[in-house]
């Protein structure tokens, strides 16, 4: 089983991304998946979590996700508010929205233990493609490129199913742009 934790702020789509990933893996990828948010009141701007679980057999576990195969951070400023590294497995992947390069980030010793680190300036792509700083589908594209958890085409199908019609084409473009950029850097 793969367990994925999404870090975002209320209103910026972290849980939608968790749902997109699990929807893509299950309905379109033919596997089993779960998605759930950090339970509680929703407050715009407050730190929130989203979780996805993906497996080849039905998922019965209803406890919180403790150990993560992948952590995706939509907003770099969250790193000063909470421990985004918590529970990340030794061989786990971290995907971070940051204008800094991977090498620059690795000067921070907290990143030293992260085997599979991907940094992407998702906000720039969002402003360019979506004309808005919403990075959830961009970070989904980056995470898929970094981990091959699911097929990128399945993520596009999930966007078509889940997102409002006027947002689907631009978000698929943004997802693909992030996917290509990360794959280009780590072929």
């Amino acid at each position, binding site marked *: 089983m793969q367990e994925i934790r999404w870090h975002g702020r209320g209103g910026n789509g972290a849980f939608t991304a968790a749902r997109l990933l699990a929807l893509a893996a*299950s309905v379109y990828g*033919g596997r089993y*998946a779960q998605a*759930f948010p950090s*339970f509680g*009141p929703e407050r715009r701007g407050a730190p929130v979590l989203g979780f996805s679980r993906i497996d080849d057999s039905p998922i*019965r*576990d*209803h406890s919180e996700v403790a150990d993560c195969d992948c952590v995706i951070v939509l907003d770099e400023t969250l790193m000063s508010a909470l421990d985004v590294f918590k529970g990340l497995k030794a061989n786990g992947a971290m995907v971070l929205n940051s204008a800094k390069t991977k090498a620059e980030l690795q000067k921070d010793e907290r990143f030293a233990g992260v085997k599979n680190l991907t940094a992407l300036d998702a906000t720039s792509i969002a402003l360019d493609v979506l004309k808005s700083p919403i990075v959830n589908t961009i970070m989904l594209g980056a995470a898929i490129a970094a981990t091959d958890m699911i097929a990128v085409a399945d993520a596009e199908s999930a966007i078509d199913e889940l997102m409002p019609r006027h947002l689907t084409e631009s978000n698929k473009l943004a997802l693909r742009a992030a996917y290509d950029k990360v794959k280009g850097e780590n072929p």
Partner: protein
Amino acid sequence: MTKTQKGKGRFLSGNEAAAEAVRLCGPQVIAAYPITPQTTLMEKLSEFVAAGEMSAPCKLLLVESEHSAMAAVMGAAMMGSRVFTATSSQGLLYMCEMLNYVSGSRFPVVMANANRGTATPWTIFGDQRDSFAMRDSGWIQFYVESGQEALDTILQAYRIAELPDVMLPVMVNIDGFTLPHTYDLVQVPEQKAVDAFLPAFKTFNKLSLEAPKCMSFAYGPDYHLESRCLQQKVFDEAVGVIERVDEEFYGLFGRRYHGLADTYRCEDAELVLAVTGSAAGTTRVVVDKLRAEGKKVGLIKVRCLRPFPAKFFASLNSPQNSCKVLGVLDRNISFGLEGGLYTDAKASMYRPGAKINTLGFVAGLGGHDVSKADIEVMFGKLANLAEGKPEEEHQFIGMRWA
């Protein structure tokens, strides 16, 4: 597996799955208090009603309180309508008075409850103290493990509730926040299959101008005891009905939940944990892990709190049963005694002279996670008792201090 849908299903939250079930059952009247602690279940249903997507014409009444919501569906049931409402935590407590009116008058109201803790301390997070507090309200109470089971149990609930020999209200408990907000693959049956399973609601227990009668009236002491005895007998009848309806459901839909209580890997299990709701799923995972380590452990999933699977628990205490120690996980507590499920399980197992080795665990209150590690700790304590090591009979699990 299922005969009604290709593929593994749709990706729905527990609340969406429950709403799909209600849509398919086609209640004519839904009443709800639309503000906290209402959940997205009612939000989804209001969308179905507005879009005309319910399987039968439906009037959605938004009322000023949960007490009124239950009163409104009782009024509609009194006219012979199929009805639905949903609530959670404080809302359920606020309904308490009307729950008893509905059950005593034998109206087959079906309600979904997103289990959450009760104030104070104020909490919006999950535990089962709300519904356990309503244990004696005369309602059949189901607890479900997944969104799929929420959907399927609501279908079964209408079938059971409306049978002329039953005519009892049914509460379907869905562990909040966990299940209502967890998205998972869910098979949504075809309308045709649901219609074959659930016939149109017909009842003599209603008001009519052609045959005027008085309903929900007062009894003097002369008939009261006998009427309560009849109410109890109906619950005895319901045991068989619940099992039968589950079998019927299996024949049509290919999924079943085994009546009042299900078991997992219990055939030769010596250490068994009884659980309600979403924690049953997590316990399955732990049982698999411990079995792989060679430990003889098993799970009992208690699906019905009322009627209680008393005969099932009694059978654990027979010499033929492999069970050496039974643990019970309660996501509720009856202050001054212990967890409610534990009390009922122990009482059901009691026989003069029989040795009962049991431990009662209270965990997962007010949204506290019931982790796999916590469940392993519980099985460890059952093992200790089996080996003759001392263990306190009642324990809180998962605390950082005490």
